[in-house]
C-alpha cells in the first residue's frame, strides 16, 4: 500500500516519451532548435528544484543561490580551459570546491534568520557576481563571459547535429537532481528540514541543532546547483556573468512560486515553463503581430519580465501554491466528492 504512494505512472510515461523523442525522424523533438530550448528548460527545471529544497522544503529564503550555480559553471570552464585535467575530473573538482564555498558562506549567513538571511545571501551572491564580472585575477574574462575550449571536451557535445546529446545530458541531469532531491526530502533529515520551516523552536526543543540541519540543506542544494551548472556549461557553450547575478536567483524564486513549492514536480514544471516562456515571449516581441498595438502597451509587452511579473504577482496574491497547488486543490475536491 505504501509503495503506491510513491509510484508515478504518468511521470514515467512522460519521461520515457521525452527520452526517446529525438530518436525518431518524425515528431516535434527531431529539430535541434527545440532540443536546445528544451535542454536549457530542463536544466532550469533542475535548478529550480534545488532552490525548492532550500526555499520550499526548508523555508530558507536565499537570494544568493545563483552564486553556486555560476561557481559550478565557471570553475568547470576554467579547469577545462587552463589545466590538463579532463572534463570529468574538472566537474568533480568544481562541484567539490563549490561545496566548500557553500559551507563557508552558509555558516556565516545562517547566523541570521528570515529576512536578514535573505539580505545577507543577496550580498554574498552579489559579491560573487562582482568578482566574475570585474574579471579578478584574469580568470573569468569579465562581462564577455568565458567560452569553453571546444577541443578539450568530448566531441559528441559539439556541433548542431549533436544537439540531441546535449538534450539527453540535460534530461539525465534533471532526472538525477529529481532523484537526489526526492531521496533527501523523503529521508529523516528531510523531515527535520520541513520541521525547521514550520516550527524551528520545536526542533530545537527536541534536541536537534537547527543551524546544523539548515547548513546541511544549504550545502546539498548548493552542490546540486553546481552540478546543474556543469551541464549548463556544455549546453550553453561556456560561462557568462548573467548566470551569477541576482536576477537569476529571482528567476528561480519565480519558477518555484509559479509551479508551486514543496511538491517537487511543481518546481520542475515552473522552471521549464519559465525558461520556455521567457524565450518565446522574447521572440513574440520581435514579431510583426504586435505592430498594430500602440507603443504604450507594446513597450512593456516586449519585455518578458512584464508578463511573467504580472503572473507572479497574481499567483502570490490570489493563487498561493502555483500550478501544482491548483492541481492538488482540484484533485482533492474531486476525491472528496467521490468518497461521499
Amino acid at each position, binding site marked *: 500500500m505504501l509503495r503506491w504512494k510513491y509510484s508515478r505512472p504518468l511521470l514515467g510515461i512522460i519521461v520515457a516519451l521525452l527520452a526517446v523523442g529525438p530518436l525518431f525522424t518524425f515528431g516535434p523533438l527531431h529539430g535541434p532548435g527545440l532540443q536546445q530550448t528544451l535542454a536549457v528548460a530542463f536544466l532550469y527545471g533542475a535548478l529550480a528544484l534545488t532552490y525548492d529544497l532550500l526555499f520550499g522544503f526548508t523555508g530558507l*529564503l536565499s537570494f544568493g543561490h545563483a552564486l553556486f550555480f555560476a561557481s559550478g559553471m565557471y570553475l568547470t570552464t576554467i579547469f577545462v580551459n587552463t589545466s590538463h585535467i579532463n572534463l570529468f575530473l574538472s566537474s568533480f573538482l568544481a562541484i567539490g570546491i563549490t561545496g566548500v564555498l557553500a559551507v563557508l558562506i552558509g555558516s*556565516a*549567513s545562517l*547566523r*541570521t534568520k*528570515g*529576512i*536578514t538571511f*535573505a*539580505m*545577507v545571501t*543577496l*550580498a*554574498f551572491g*552579489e*559579491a560573487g557576481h*562582482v*568578482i566574475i564580472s*570585474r574579471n*579578478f585575477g584574469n580568470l573569468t574574462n569579465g562581462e564577455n563571459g568565458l567560452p569553453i575550449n571546444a577541443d578539450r571536451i568530448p566531441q559528441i557535445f559539439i556541433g548542431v547535429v549533436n544537439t540531441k546529446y546535449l538534450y539527453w545530458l540535460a534530461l539525465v541531469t534533471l532526472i538525477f537532481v529529481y532523484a537526489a532531491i526526492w531521496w533527501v526530502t523523503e529521508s529523516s533529515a528531510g523531515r527535520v528540514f520541513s520541521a525547521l520551516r514550520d516550527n524551528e523552536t520545536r526542533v530545537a526543543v527536541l534536541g536537534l541543532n537547527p543551524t546544523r540541519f539548515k547548513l546541511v540543506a544549504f550545502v546539498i542544494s548548493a552542490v546540486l546547483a553546481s552540478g546543474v551548472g556543469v551541464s549548463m556549461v556544455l549546453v550553453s557553450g561556456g560561462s557568462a556573468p548573467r548566470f551569477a547575478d*541576482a*536576477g537569476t536567483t*529571482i528567476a528561480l*524564486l*519565480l519558477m518555484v*512560486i509559479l509551479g508551486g513549492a514543496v511538491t517537487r514536480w511543481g518546481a520542475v514544471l515552473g522552471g521549464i515553463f519559465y525558461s520556455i516562456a521567457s524565450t518565446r515571449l522574447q521572440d513574440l516581441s520581435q514579431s510583426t503581430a504586435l505592430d498594430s498595438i500602440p*507603443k*504604450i502597451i*507594446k*513597450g*512593456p*509587452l*516586449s*519585455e*518578458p*519580465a*512584464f508578463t*511573467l*511579473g*504580472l503572473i*507572479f*504577482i497574481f499567483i*502570490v*496574491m490570489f493563487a*498561493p501554491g502555483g500550478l501544482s497547488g491548483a492541481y492538488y486543490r482540484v484533485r482533492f475536491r474531486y476525491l472528496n466528492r467521490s468518497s461521499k
Partner: protein
Amino acid sequence: MDTFILISITGIGLGALYFLVASGLSLIYGLMGVLNFAHGTFMSVGAYMGLWFSTQVVHTTNTWTFIGALIVGGLGGGLFALIVEQLVITRLYERHIDQALVTVGVALVVGAMLGGWFTNDLRLLPTPTWFINIVKVRGAIIPVDRFLYIGVAALLLVVMLAILKFTRIGLIIRAGVENRHMVTALGINVRLAFSAVFFLGGFAAGVGGVLTAAYQNGVSPLTAGTWLIYGFIVVVVGGMGSIGGSALAAMLIGITKQFANYYIPGLGDFVIVFLLAAVLLTKPQGLLGKVSA
C-alpha cells in the same frame, strides 16, 4: 593628505546616496517587517519624474529647476510608493514572505514598463553648469556636486528625525517599530503610519533617484538594482528600523568603498561584503539595531 580628504569627502558623498535608499528600506522593514524589493523602482520612478520635469516642463537648466526636479522626483517616488502600498502590500497584511515576494513582482513589472517605454539606455539628466565645478579643501580638488548630495541627504535626515521625534505620526511610527501589536491593541490606527512610512521612504528614494541620475550621468531602469543591493547592505549593517544606524552605516560603507577602490580598483564591492559579514558575525542585529527587532 589631500588624497585622504578627497577620498573621504567623495566617500561621504556616495554614502549620502546610499542613505537616501536605505532610510526608507530601514523604516519600512522596522515598522512593517516588509523587505521591499520594489524600493529600487521607487528610485527609478522618481528619477524619470525628475527627468520629465527638467526636460518637458521647464526648458532651462539652472539651480532652481534642479531643485524643482528633486521635489518632483521625491513626490513622484512617494506617491508611487503609496500606490504600491495600497494596491498590493495592504492586501497581504502580516504575510511577510509573501509581501517580500510581491514586491519582487512589482519591481519586475514596473522595471519592464519603464524599460519598454523609455528603453534601457542611459538618458541624460540636465544638471546646472556649476555641477562640474571643483572646490579646493586644504589642497584636495573635490567635485562640487558631492557637497550637494551630502547636503540633501543631511537635510532629509534632519527632516525625518524631526518628523519621527516631534509629530504624532512620528510617535506612532516609533512606537510601532518597538511593538506594533501593542500600538494596535491601544486602539491607534497603525495603517496610517504604514502609509506615512511608505510615502516618506518613497520620497527619499525618489530624491535619491534624481541625485543618482546626476551622479551617474543619466537615468536607466537597469541601474536601480545595484543601488538597492547597497541599500540592503546599509540597512543590515546599520540595524533594521534605525534611521541613525542607516546614516552611520551609509557613511561607513561609502568611505570604505572609496578607500578600497583607491588602492585596488574594483576591490570596493568585495571589501563591503566582508564588512557586512564581519558586522553580522559580531553584532547580528546591526550597529544600532535592537536585539529583539
